């Protein structure tokens, strides 16, 4: 490890326009673009050649989004493959350690090293399940030729074709699909009906878990502690410490999360959001033809007693019979990297009576995550592959690939195809 990058006040929004260090003495060139959030620093470091690779965490797209903006590979493994011990927790059931590199080969190299069972992480995938997972039949096992994808079925989820998509993104998406088709892949239109509920569900669940995980930052045992000498009320150590220590967006999310967990709201928001999450997971299980190893083991406990060959045979049969797909291809972001001036939060806006734009700016920031969030809710692996440049502003655009839980090898395989032909 050569260094750690600065993050905008821990788990920031999708923008990342500021570092904590800069005091804004000089005006920033308002035409500059943002690196994306929240692993924007990591993406920028890799893109500029400062380092070979960089680690980050992807809770709602925090690795894939900056990777798309900066034109590098952003890879999010399946939840549970890489240990979260040592990762500052934001939303425990969504946080995934991910990798940013300049090419797929490097990402796979690092992934093979860090995707190990860790007993210190209770959500780490146990060895038995890893072994079952690697025995399951998947596309990469049945194929060895990168230019012959005739056995591949690629899914295009209809719900991702939203009106907010900018034209450069749309055409790049089409170009990616054509490329795969030209190698013989079967292109299938699929439906993930719960997609439109995924974004609001995420913005209930993630802030709720975050409000809980951030409760430990009280200045008592470590970190910033408010200098109470200048304060009037001695009893408000926690209030002052946390108000000073957290940025605006983080405070916003903590409040939102706290609210959804209160006794009156819990059943109306939190529980509903969990149900939607389950629906998003089932959407993907229906769409993919490789079985989800987690659900397989739950439903057929006899699976655990089979040897690896038997597992391969059973899953191969299941796979052949299914009309599902091996991989899904979608855009990563709605647009190329936004300008700094468009992404500054309300506290920096000079005209504070512009309340309408205030609300819009927060919500717009959240909408940027719409393509990346479903993969986090379902825990499936996803990757952002830089595929082209926008003809309008010349900034990078990435395409997102997603496969079934535990099917990272197929994901790397298809990513390499895209990478070789961008």
């Amino acid at each position: 490890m050569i260094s750690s990058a600065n993050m905008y006040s821990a788990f920031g929004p999708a923008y990342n326009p500021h570092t904590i260090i800069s005091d804004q003495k000089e005006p920033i060139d308002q035409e500059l673009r943002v690196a994306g959030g929240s692993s924007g620093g990591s993406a920028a470091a890799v893109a500029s050649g400062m380092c070979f690779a960089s680690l980050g965490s992807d809770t709602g797209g925090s690795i894939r989004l900056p990777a798309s903006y900066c034109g590098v590979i952003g890879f999010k493994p399946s939840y549970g493959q890489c240990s979260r011990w040592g990762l500052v927790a934001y939303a425990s059931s969504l946080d995934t350690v991910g990798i940013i590199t300049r090419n797929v080969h490097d990402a796979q190299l690092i992934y093979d090293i860090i995707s190990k069972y860790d007993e210190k992480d209770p959500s780490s995938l146990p060895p038995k399940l890893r072994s079952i997972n690697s025995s399951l039949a998947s596309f990469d096992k049945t194929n060895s030729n990168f230019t012959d994808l005739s056995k591949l079925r690629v899914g295009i989820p209809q719900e991702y074709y939203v009106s907010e998509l900018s034209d450069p993104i749309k055409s790049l998406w089409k170009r990616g699909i054509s490329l795969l088709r030209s190698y013989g892949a079967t292109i299938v239109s699929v439906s993930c009906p719960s997609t439109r509920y995924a974004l609001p569900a995420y913005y209930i669940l993630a802030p709720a878990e975050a409000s809980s995980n951030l409760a430990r930052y009280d200045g008592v045992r470590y970190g910033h502690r408010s200098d109470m000498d200048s304060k009037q009320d001695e009893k408000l150590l926690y209030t002052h410490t946390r108000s000073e220590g957290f940025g605006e967006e983080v405070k916003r999310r903590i409040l939102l999360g706290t609210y959804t967990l209160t006794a009156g709201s819990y059943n109306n928001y939190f529980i509903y959001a969990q149900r939607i999450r389950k629906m998003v997971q089932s959407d993907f299980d229906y769409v993919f033809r490789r079985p989800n190893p987690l659900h397989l083991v739950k439903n057929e406990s006899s699976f655990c007693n089979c040897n690896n060959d038997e597992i391969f045979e059973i899953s191969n049969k299941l796979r052949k019979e299914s009309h599902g797909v091996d991989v899904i291809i979608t855009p990563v972001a709605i647009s190329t990297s936004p300008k700094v001036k468009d992404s500054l939060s309300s506290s920096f806006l000079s005209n504070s009576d512009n309340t309408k734009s205030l609300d819009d700016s927060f919500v717009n920031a959240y909408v940027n995550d719409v393509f990346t969030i479903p993969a986090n809710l379902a825990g499936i692996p996803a990757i952002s592959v830089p595929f082209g440049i926008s003809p309008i502003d010349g900034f990078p655009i990435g395409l997102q690939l997603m496969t079934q839980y535990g099917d990272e090898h197929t994901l790397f395989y298809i990513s390499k195809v895209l990478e070789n032909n961008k």
Partner: protein
Amino acid sequence: MIIKTFVTTYLKKTCNERFISKIKRNVTFYQYSTHLYKSNKWETIIGLEVHAQLNSKTKLFSSSSTSFNEPVNTNVSVIDAAFPGTLPQLNTKCVELAVAASLALSGNVQLVSSFDRKQYFYPDLPPGYQITQHYAPISLGGKIFLNQLDGLEYDTMVRIKQIQLEQDTGKSIHDIVPGMTLIDLNRAGTGLIEIVTEPDMRTSKEAGLTVKKLQSILRTIGSSDGNMEEGSLRCDVNVSVHEHETPYGTRCEIKNLNSIKFLMAAIDVEIERQIKELENGNKIVQETRGFDVLKNKTFRLRTKETATDYRYMPEPDLSPLILNKDYITRISNNLPELPDDLKTRIMKQYGIPLHDVIVLMNETGGVKYFEEAVKNRNPQHVSNWITHELFGLLHARNIKFSQNPVSALQLGSVIDCVDNGDITGKVGKKIIEKMISGDSRLASIIIQDEGLRQLSDINELEKICKNVILQNPEQLRSFKGGKQTVFAWFVGQVMNKTKGQANPKLVNEILRKLL
């Protein structure tokens, strides 16, 4: 039922209707609330919430060691202090101890249970939440029976609502440095089981005995030391009163009680307070109260309006705890004998009284020790030597019975030597003291090496007695003259001459013969 019908049919013949209905009411309640409270107008409803620290070597979700009275903040890991990036790791020993507790209390161990976060801010709760089992605890149901063996004049049963695993908090110490609260995190993260009873108790005595029974059961199975003074057992009690045949009243919770005596006193005082309020026409406000020992009164800690919303959320880091039947059967088969069975068996098998059994059971390992030492010996003697002598001597030296240096074999040897007359009881006690100090020899060896053998040779004794009599003609004359007390003096002299080693019984016989 039989009592009720008999009394009513008998009374119908002799009394008027109003009187009968009053008796009927009281008799009916005699079946459920088995106390005869002074006013007979009010019934008390009592429920308990008991937190027992689990007897595991390490904490519930981290590998730092559990502790008692260790130097502050020496058993704290990064997980206990909620450092960023830390995650909980379930200690399976705690699960075992919780399952054992459930089985011992006749509970239903849930094959699937899950963990939740109970969230509030406080400096002695480093993560800002406590991991507990709010929605799906590890055990539901169960019961505690109380009867004569426990010290209650009648039989009753207290149902258990649930048992759940949870973390303990650290300690906040407010009164050492003025203006500051000191935080000791040694205890933070220690595993607890919370045992919630149904509101089945009707008197403070029932409540006190329930806690005692619970302590006894938990100690027997080794799940917890159950020591209120040391803090390994904490009780909160819920008390409400209502008039017979009216709905249950509003309850108040009393916290921070650290002995059974205070628990019972607090309940009684709270009952009086509530009855007084209601008789004055006031309503009882649901609140949490503490007990002031000196004033013998309860006082308000906080009211329901200011009660915290704990924002319970399923613990996202931990998957549900899934147990299988084999695991539970294995633990069930390894359960030691439970207190009720143990009491009955020991009394029956060895013929020693209930009181002795209770004293033996009060020390962890006491009964086992007794059963070792009692082989081929008189049970009452063995019991007396343990409960009257050994326990007392250890206690005087501040040695816990778990650290007792006197093996059952050693104690047995002392008892043997006393019983067959080799030594007096006094000498036996001295030998035990030696053993406590570290002497690991058997009594027979010690006696031999140090010549402590009781003098029982009749000829020797006769010689010494005759000598003493001859050397003290005045006392002899005094005795012959009728002063009976001089006899004791003669005995004393003989004992003196023999350095206390003469067999007192024989000395008595011989002197009587000679004098």
